[in-house]
């Protein structure tokens, strides 16, 4: 009898310990690695947090490896500085004078269309009638392109800088993509106005 009792107690201890172990096996931290120095890069990795201390100076603000481009530098390839300002006057100027650099052979709705679907349709709707998913839910209501007094230049200005409650899409689309999307919006407007 007494022996049995002891066994009971032992089982309980084991059980409690098991529960303890299982609870430790959480997914909230990464697993062990065999040779971490083979896994972790010597150079900085994208998005890495890097605590770099050079002679007492913290090099990276917030220890953030990601940097902005140096002032005055431009990326290679598909880039032209945009001269028009983010002001009401700039908007009016773009509306009146800014023309698309793409000629009719370069305009490709097969390029602009899918990009529009990714970045704009969520608010403006697939056809630009202002009935995107978020608009249907009354969360963001942009209105239909048919209502708007827009030209290819003002569309580009809007994509580049945003307008009022609409944000800028300049960091998600590069220059030629922006023009392709603008052309596509102009086409949607033309279709709506029909």
């Amino acid at each position, binding site marked *: 009898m007494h022996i049995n009792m002891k066994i009971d107690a032992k089982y309980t201890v084991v059980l409690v310990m098991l529960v303890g172990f299982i609870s430790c096996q959480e997914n909230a931290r990464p*697993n062990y690695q065999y040779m971490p120095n083979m896994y972790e890069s010597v150079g900085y990795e994208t998005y890495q947090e890097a605590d770099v201390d050079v002679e007492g100076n913290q090099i990276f603000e917030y220890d953030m490896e990601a940097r902005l481009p140096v002032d005055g530098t431009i990326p290679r390839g598909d880039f032209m500085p945009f001269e028009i300002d983010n002001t009401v006057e700039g908007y009016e100027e773009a509306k009146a004078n800014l023309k698309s650099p793409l000629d009719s052979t370069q305009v490709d709705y097969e390029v602009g269309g899918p990009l529009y679907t990714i*970045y704009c349709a969520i608010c403006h709707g697939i056809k630009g009638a202002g009935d995107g998913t978020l608009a249907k839910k009354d969360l963001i209501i942009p209105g239909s392109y048919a209502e708007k007094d827009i030209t290819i230049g003002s569309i580009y200005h809007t994509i580049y800088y945003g307008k009022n409650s609409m*944000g800028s899409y300049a960091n998600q689309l590069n220059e030629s993509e922006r023009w392709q999307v603008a052309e596509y919006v102009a086409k949607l407007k033309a279709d709506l106005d029909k």
Partner: protein
Amino acid sequence: MKKSYQSLEDNSTNNMKQVIYRNLTSKILYLGFILLLTFSTSLTAQEGDPVNGKALYRTNCASCHKLDSRMTGPALRNVETRLAEEEGLDREWINAWIKNSAGLIRSGDPYAVKIYAEYNQTAMTAFPQLSNQDISDILAYTAEPKPEPVVAEVPTGVQGGGGDGLSSDIMLAALALLFALLAGALVLVNRTLKRFADEKGIEVPVKEKGTPIWKAFVQNQFLVLVTVIFFLLASAYFVYGFFMQVGIDQGYEPVQPIHYSHRIHAGENGIDCKYCHSSARVSKHSGIPSLNVCMNCHKSIAQVGDETQAEGISEYGVDYNAQIQKLYKAVGWDATTQQYTGETSPVKWIRIHNLPDFAYFNHSQHVSVAGVECQTCHGPVEEMEVMYQYAPLTMGWCINCHRETNINVKDNEYYTKIHEELSKKYGVEQLTAAQMGGLECGKCHY
């Protein structure tokens, strides 16, 4: 659609015609219109029709005005009474403002100038096409009382984010305590029973002393051998399993600084993955969106719907609205003035997927060139409340997929020639990624 409007148009007034054109798509308006046409004779200019007003408001005003909070322009709930009481402005003024606010400002109207300056000289669109009747409809809509919110109770103790880890810990601790108590109780009961038995002089029958089972077992050498082998195999299996999973982070699910839910964004609201992870189209990394991308929407969405909020609290123990406030704090957005304060602090998202340094993986090649769905590798992201690593990301996993997947040659001139040659060489119609060289060490290892 157009035909049926044609007939309406004939017996409506000129400005109504424009209204019709502006709202071709809106079904509600369509209904509203029929209503309006039916009642238009009986309506005076002062009484508006809120149903038509709502439709007009949605198409014209909602992109800048919310009813109950400031957006690009001021909140418009009860604007007419507000302006009348606070500024002594009448309907006349409102009509003039809506039809041409710029004109009113230029004419030097003091309140117009003041509010224009207050809103950082943001120009309100002119609406010359709206009739006085339209405007009174809109004002009737804005004068409707605010619908009672569904009260979402926030129980005290619900913390934003990371709350679930804590609560499961507490649960486990409670369980362990319960076990300990049970064990203690058992011991006590047994002891008291025994004491009773002793006092009453009852002999607890003691089992006959034969050979106990374990002794019999030890004496049987064959059984011992089999058991030992069994245990060795079993432990070898577990040890192998343990060593093989070292370095694999499948299921890794860290607690993020903002409880950001893919279920709500990519699932319920159907936002395209590439809207946020935009560099997946064009580069090696898929990228975590910078916060300005979040603000494209969250400038306008300061709170989740009441139902979403209630669901978040009851099912996930998260106060969603508090999470959006965290986002505002990080970007330094002041929702009351609708302006950035300039005080920012970065959000330190915890990286989940991370290949070792010696392996190379490129998103654009898989996403744009091969057209592989994100879900193939990242699992049912649109159902994940909290992001976790779905695939093991082992070399075997990569290689398996390369063996099984045909390459996508459609519209890809780069592949045309080499595909022709190689498919002849291997005698197959469709090459797999492996046959295109997807097993060569140098493709994935620097």
